[in-house]
């Protein structure tokens, strides 16, 4: 699943245009058609494999923020690489990412990276078992991640809490007369 997500991310990344200027446009019909390709189901023996919608949404948002639409050549190359990656999934005949062989994973990553190159970006495997797509500046454009994030205390609060805890421990030690300050 994560590999497929990475696949989609890579394809979307490839579809994305390099310029980081904020654009003022909606997706073109060709771009929408390309994303429709990403939404296609891949039939495998254990059911169907489909790229998560939230991953596709990241790609759509990224493309929508680009200044210029994708060129026909870019769309053409991306589509070819996407279909090649989908063929790899079909050849593996399973939608369970953990069942993919090393060669299958490498082949899919390679197709994703080729697609990313069409827009001067690159795709690499991440620590979560998925794929990150990054632009020319190294910023992550699309990645697979949980939808509900961690929104606990920020770093500053942790530091303050740590200081309070240490202070409390010191006070306890002082009170217990284990530590003599004078």
């Amino acid at each position, binding site marked *: 699943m994560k590999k497929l997500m990475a696949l989609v991310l890579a394809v979307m990344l490839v579809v994305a245009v390099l310029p980081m200027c904020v654009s*003022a446009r909606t997706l073109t019909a060709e771009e929408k058609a390309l994303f429709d390709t990403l939404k296609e189901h891949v039939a495998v023996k254990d059911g169907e494999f489909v790229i998560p919608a939230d991953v596709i949404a990241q790609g759509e948002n990224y493309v929508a923020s680009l200044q210029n639409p994708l060129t026909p050549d870019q769309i053409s190359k991306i589509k070819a690489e996407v279909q090649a990656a989908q063929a790899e999934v079909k050849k593996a005949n399973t939608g369970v990412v953990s069942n993919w062989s090393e060669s299958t994973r490498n082949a899919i990553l390679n197709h994703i990276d080729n697609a990313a190159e069409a827009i001067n970006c690159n795709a690499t495997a991440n620590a979560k078992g998925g794929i990150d797509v*990054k632009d020319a500046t190294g910023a992550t454009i699309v990645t697979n991640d949980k939808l509900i994030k961690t*929104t606990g205390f920020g770093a500053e609060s942790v530091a303050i809490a740590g200081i309070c805890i240490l202070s409390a421990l010191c006070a306890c030690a002082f009170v217990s007369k284990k530590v003599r300050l004078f």
Partner: protein
Amino acid sequence: MMIFFLYLVLGKTLSPYLGIINLLLKDQNQTEVPQEYENIFEGYEKEDEPETTAENENVIDGNSIVFPKRGALYARLSLPSVGMETDVYFDDSDAALNRGGVGQSYSSKIPGYGKPILISGHNNGKFNALQHLKVGDLVVITTNYGIFEYQVRECVVKDKDDPTAANLQQEKEELILYTCYPFSMLGLTRQRYFVYADKVSGPVVLH
């Protein structure tokens, strides 16, 4: 047995510290956002209203909107009933949330596009105010292209892995706000406090 008994008794006291430990041990592989955050929010004035379509004055041409890049500050969110107002960033990574505002999931759409909007914030920050929201209260999001109002429909606590917590595929502009729960908990928690609100006013973006 004594230790277990003490844990049950002192559990509530110890949990904040356990949360801190969890926070320190959590996966540090966070999504990188651009170092130079873009600020495209300029506020909304009636005279700056984007082009509307001929058929409906409340429908905006999507080509006249500057779509925010990932990490950009693009809107202001306010809770009039509790007196809270904050910046909204188009990213919900730790780096974005630690900028003092709230972060929108990059997997969700911005207001006006008829799709769910998922926004999170720290429970010790601006979104500590979520606990004071009641059903019927308004949540207002101001963008460069319009002012959007959402009415709170439900406030509920759910597990962080609950698959029903946020359905971003529905064809409905639902505003979903969430933060860690309990509000007094330090560090990581398993639960989230969700506020669901339905759109009651604001333009529609043609896209």
